[in-house]
């Protein structure tokens, strides 16, 4: 199997697993009213799911340049990490 195929499969698996972990964290947030779990849920979506969507779905669909897609991904990373970092101040 070519390396590119393995990478694409691993990326898809990362996005699916990220969505699952985010859902579990969101459930934890709803059940325990825990801001850490809520932020973790947002953070994981931004870090693991959004980049996949930008790279494989939104990017090709609206014809983003490499730089625009890269900016969207790094912005998603920054927002997700900022959401997690904010909870440390509670």
């Amino acid at each position, binding site marked *: 199997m070519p*390396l590119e195929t393995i990478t694409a499969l691993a990326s898809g698996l*990362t996005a699916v697993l990220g969505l699952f972990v985010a859902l579990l964290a969101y459930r934890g947030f709803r059940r325990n009213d825990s801001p850490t779990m809520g932020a*973790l849920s947002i953070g994981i979506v931004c870090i693991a799911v959004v980049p996949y969507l930008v790279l494989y779905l939104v990017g090709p669909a609206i014809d983003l340049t*490499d*730089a625009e897609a*890269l*900016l969207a991904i790094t912005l998603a990373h920054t927002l997700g990490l900022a959401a997690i970092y904010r909870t440390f101040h509670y």
Partner: protein
Amino acid sequence: MIGTPTPLTGPPAALARATGSVPEAVGSITSTRTLEAIARLGSIPVAPLQIEVEGGSTPVVLAAIATFFVALVLSVLVTYRFVEGYRRTKARPILLLAVGMFLLAPAPMFIRLLVGNVAAIPLSVQLLTTTLSELSGLVVILYVVYSR
């Protein structure tokens, strides 16, 4: 690095091209800025520094590089706060969250930063390494969240 199919080689690769002093054959979208002012600095004659950006417009590339470094700093801070939390509470789930967060965010970014600028390492290997790091980070976080 030049001539590779570009899909998102990461900011380090873009940065490598942006700081390259030798004009290189670039893709379809290329903008060149000559910083003659730098060349005029000092008394030693210096060849004009040329910055070439490929894959998009210069402001977007620079913004992407800047946000990449902001995200890198934030990821290190978040991981550090988890480690600090573990050292304070000695709670194993927090240590695992620190490990998971490290594998999910800072580790892939450092890999992109280091490996992306080494031409000897193929792009596919870099992408696979970062993806596997993120995947293992998510598995660790899944374990923590699932066991709560």
